[in-house]
């Protein structure tokens, strides 16, 4: 008897063990017991055994059964596929052992077989004031009667099926608004899709029972609510004795750094002080966590940083209670625990964390790379600055960075430096891939529904640039435009088509220093920028390098992995004017790492035009001359005349007489 009972208990409770994973055993166990939890009818259909089980089932098998625990050595591994364990679980009769019937005290203690309370494999059907009928919500009379008998110590468990859909705050507020009695929820937690919490007295429970059918969510669905008697919640059970709490407080005070307002509870179970007083601070257990949080609330409410590293935490339900107790926590270290999914973070997402440590948790393996991991975490804590010791916001972080930058502000028309850098970085990356030869890597840069079009303008008065026809080889649509201008235009849609087409275009070498970029914020999530510049076209080794001029307009949106994603891309390619090729100084030289500042003003441009006409020099050379002479027209003119007389001005500076 004792042994099977022992097995059952160990199988049920979460365990510390050296290695291995508890998940398998726990999942099996939970799914087995949880199928029908929360449904009144089901209690009725299946016999009371199962309901009894589910009543025991506190969050994640966390119900510690106090003294019994201490007696058990070694603790059994949940993941053992030991048939005995399963068998015991299914063997309802054994379960009955655990339930206290005769003994009016609900506490599940003293399960030695010598205990008079234990019965031997019979379901003790008492007729009168026996067990509370578990398969239906107790009536008021029953509650009162049994409350008097104090069978279950007046604790009631409230279950909201599908409670997982709602936030804790909304749920509790809604319930309170419909409930005639004020209640204090204890041990609020989610299990699977349900939400549960406990209340202490029967009047409250009865009042809550009446809330059922009264709450509607925003989709006008009813929120159901079931009340049943239960054992005390795990945080109440095995509450630490006052002297234990005192020791706990002392131990924690030693670990509190006043200057940093930080509390280091790393490997708290193995704290020397606690161990010497025989206090087992297993933080996974609700009672331990609850006691710890109470100490924090009373002694360190101004806490800023909490370190819970290496405490084998696999759920954060208990930790969630910290939010009202220490609202200023900004730094949380949960590294080297057993958190298996980011859903655990859901429970603490109201914490305004700036720094979070999660490495060393199994959940890390759910992500294929660091940036998906980081952006998933940012979903929970958008204000996070530092994750696992690494800065979260950096220049390529479009998500948080760009969305703020892109907000159109009334005063600031200009484009911020950060945005300019963002665009420049994008262009550098884009063109390095574009030029390197394998343009299929550009697939990542394009949105699934991206559009791309290529336009080749040419003036019929000039010789049709035959060389440009290689761009139009694949083009079948030759459009006729007015003014008898030959125009080749192609529109590609979907990133696959776009990139396939880009790969066909000739190999290029873009001259980043020639880039002139204009940026325009369209909306909070859309950015448009145009690039004017030059590139060299390398067709074959033997052919001379051809210089092309291009204009490219990109419309981009921020993508989930901190990148920019192209939705529109238009390219115009024309022959770079041969005269232009000579002059390397068109506009003040720009370093590749900076976006060119706006060029000459309208007045200056007019000046250059005039100078150009008068001197006979090309626009750019006139510009250069004027700049070198501080835009003093007269002085520039004098210097020009001087230099020209000395023959120091190269022939190509002058406009060719056509």
């Amino acid at each position, binding site marked *: 008897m004792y042994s099977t009972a022992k097995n059952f208990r160990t199988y049920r409770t979460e365990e510390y063990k050296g290695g291995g994973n508890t998940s398998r055993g726990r999942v099996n166990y939970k799914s087995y017991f949880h199928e029908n939890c929360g449904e009144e009818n089901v209690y009725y259909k299946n016999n009371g055994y199962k309901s009894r089980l589910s009543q025991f089932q506190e969050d994640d098998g966390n119900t510690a059964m106090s003294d019994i625990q201490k007696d058990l050595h070694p603790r059994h591994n949940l993941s053992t596929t030991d048939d005995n364990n399963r068998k015991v679980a299914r063997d309802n009769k054994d379960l009955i052992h655990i339930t206290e019937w005769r003994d009016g005290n609900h506490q599940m203690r003293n399960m030695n077989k010598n205990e008079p309370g234990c019965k031997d494999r019979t379901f003790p059907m008492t007729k009168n004031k026996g067990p509370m009928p578990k398969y239906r919500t107790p009536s008021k009379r029953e509650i009162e009667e049994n409350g008097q008998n104090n069978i279950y110590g007046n604790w009631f468990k409230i279950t909201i099926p599908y409670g997982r859909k709602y936030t804790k705050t909304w749920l509790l507020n809604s319930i309170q608004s419909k409930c005639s009695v004020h209640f204090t929820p204890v041990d609020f937690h989610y299990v699977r899709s349900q939400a549960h919490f406990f209340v202490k007295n029967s009047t409250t429970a009865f009042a809550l029972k009446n809330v059922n059918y009264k709450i509607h969510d925003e989709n006008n669905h009813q929120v159901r609510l079931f009340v049943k008697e239960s054992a005390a919640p795990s945080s109440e059970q095995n509450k630490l004795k006052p002297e234990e709490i005192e020791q706990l407080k002392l131990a924690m005070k030693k670990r509190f750094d006043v200057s940093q307002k930080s509390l280091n509870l790393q490997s708290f179970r193995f704290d020397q002080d606690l161990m010497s007083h025989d206090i087992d601070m297993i933080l996974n257990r609700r009672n331990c966590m609850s006691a710890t949080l109470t100490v924090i609330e009373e002694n360190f409410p101004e806490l800023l940083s909490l370190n819970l590293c290496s405490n084998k935490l696999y759920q954060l339900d208990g930790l969630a209670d910290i939010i009202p107790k220490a609202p200023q926590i900004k730094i949380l270290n949960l590294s080297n625990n057993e958190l298996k999914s980011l859903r655990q973070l859901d429970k603490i997402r109201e914490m305004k964390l700036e720094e979070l440590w999660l490495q060393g948790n199994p959940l890390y393996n759910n992500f294929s790379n660091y940036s998906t991991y980081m952006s998933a975490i940012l979903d929970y804590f958008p204000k996070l600055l530092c994750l696992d010791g690494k800065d979260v916001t950096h220049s390529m972080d479009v998500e948080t960075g760009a969305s703020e930058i892109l907000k159109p502000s009334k005063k600031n028309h200009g484009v911020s430096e950060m945005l300019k850098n963002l665009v420049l970085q994008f262009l550098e990356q884009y063109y390095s891939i574009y030029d390197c030869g394998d343009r299929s890597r550009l697939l990542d840069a394009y949105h699934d529904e991206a559009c791309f079009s290529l336009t080749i303008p040419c003036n019929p008065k000039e010789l049709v640039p035959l060389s440009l026809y290689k761009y139009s080889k694949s083009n079948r649509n030759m459009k006729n435009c007015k003014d008898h201008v030959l125009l080749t235009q192609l529109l590609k849609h979907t990133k696959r088509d776009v990139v396939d087409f880009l790969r066909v275009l000739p190999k290029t070498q873009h001259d980043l220093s020639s880039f002139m970029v204009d940026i325009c914020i369209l909306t909070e999530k*859309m950015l448009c920028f145009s690039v004017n510049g030059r590139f060299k076209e390398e067709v074959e080794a033997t052919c001379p390098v051809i210089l092309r*001029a291009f204009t490219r307009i990109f419309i981009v949106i921020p993508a989930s992995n901190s990148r920019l994603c192209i939705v*529109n891309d238009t390219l115009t390619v024309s022959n770079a004017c041969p005269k232009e090729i000579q002059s390397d100084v068109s506009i003040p030289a720009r370093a590749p790492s900076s976006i060119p500042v*706006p060029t000459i003003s309208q007045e200056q*441009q007019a000046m250059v035009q005039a100078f150009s006409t008068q001197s006979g020099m090309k626009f750019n050379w006139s510009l250069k001359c004027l700049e070198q002479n501080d835009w003093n027209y007269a002085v520039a003119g004098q210097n020009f005349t001087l230099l020209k007389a000395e023959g120091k001005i190269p022939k190509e500076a002058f406009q060719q007489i056509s």
Partner: protein
Amino acid sequence: MGVHEAGQRPRMGDKPIWEQIGSSFIQHYYQLFDNDRTQLGAIYIDASCLTWEGQQFQGKAAIVEKLSSLPFQKIQHSITSQDHQPTPDSCILSMVVGQLKADEDPIMGFHQMFLLKNINDAWVCTNDMFRLALHNFG
């Protein structure tokens, strides 16, 4: 006169909608600009933004002021090419390459980009970027 591939009819009739809207806008714009650019206010709205040679101007009034104050009396635009694309939020991106001649100055190439949006059944320009061509003459 145009060049068609053998057997292909000119696709004037079945142009995609963004091309129709884009090209008629372009035509309208340069006609206005060349004849009386002070009338251009009609195509902009208060949220519009013009980037003229790198300088930004916001709002219908500021834009019209800038365009009106450009230092030339006569202006003539000649479009070499235009290209239109639909954007994900149902706007139209139009890119224009062409040449312009202001007063008696030499011909210069230019590039211009428009972003058109449908507001209350009328197409207005929300963004406008203009640059003179440096590397080619349009």
